[in-house]
């Protein structure tokens, strides 16, 4: 059975349904991360002592720059579809995926270094929070990459049949990806700089 899909904005919400759906999903995601941030503040301010500058700022700064760049390429991928520039869309979306993968690789190297130094979550509250917050964020990166790989692979054929629907899918994916960038921009100073 074909699920009916409306590409036009509804007059009552001003949004097409998928976009309203992704915004509601992001609102629920905010609750998850706000809860984690709140736990961080509570545990940090209640701690007798707190380790400072024990995480690699250089790697995290590079990762921040990567995510900021990937948000930019994601917007360009969506805009390329709006101007019917398919090859530019593919290049920009491919670049976004590549930047996301590099982010995860840097995160993997970072984890490896800490694990080799015996800095596991059981070591102290700081490392427990560090692994929890960054791993939850990294899982969100993986989720975004899976969707983008689908849009680059089997999902791409929708462009020929339903170009507006495909463009909406890319826009919704972009909203999610920007949100992942948004969360990292707040996580980065909290864990690495303060």
């Amino acid at each position, binding site marked *: 059975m074909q699920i009916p899909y409306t590409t036009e904005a509804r007059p009552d919400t001003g949004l097409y349904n998928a976009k309203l759906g992704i915004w509601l999903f992001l609102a629920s995601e905010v609750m998850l991360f706000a809860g984690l941030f709140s736990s961080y503040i509570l545990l940090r301010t209640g701690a007798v002592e707190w380790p400072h500058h024990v995480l690699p700022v250089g790697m995290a700064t590079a990762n921040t720059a990567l995510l900021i760049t990937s948000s930019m390429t994601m917007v360009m991928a969506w*805009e390329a579809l709006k101007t019917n520039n398919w090859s530019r869309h593919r290049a920009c979306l491919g670049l976004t995926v590549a930047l996301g993968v590099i982010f995860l690789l840097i995160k993997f190297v970072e984890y490896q270094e800490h694990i080799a130094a015996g800095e596991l979550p059981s070591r102290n509250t700081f490392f427990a929070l560090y692994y929890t917050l960054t791993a939850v964020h990294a899982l969100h990166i993986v989720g975004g990459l899976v969707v983008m790989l689908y849009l680059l692979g089997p999902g791409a054929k929708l462009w020929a049949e339903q170009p507006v629907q495909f463009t909406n899918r890319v826009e919704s994916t972009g909203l999610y990806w920007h949100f992942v960038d948004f969360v990292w*921009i707040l996580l980065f100073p909290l864990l690495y700089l303060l």
Partner: protein
Amino acid sequence: MRTSADTAPDTRRHVATFASQLVLMLATVGVSRLDLGLRLGATVVMLLAAVNATVVAVALMGVRRDGPLVRLLVVLTLVVIIGLLVWPAWDIATRVRVF
């Protein structure tokens, strides 16, 4: 559907957004290296990060562009976030210190 002529100003806007985000990121790292004390340093660093995150929400996610329902959703979400952050802050401020 827009024409290709419409893309030029958007590209400039995105480049400006990208550049401002990188500058804000570097400023955040730079300020964290200054000896401002924990309270002032943390305030300035998180303020810069919040501005950077706001740039993402407004310029890239289109919070203002997407209409009143999205703005309402964002405001309600902010209320919950502030609640979640103020609650522990209030608890800590009124807690008897034993150490």
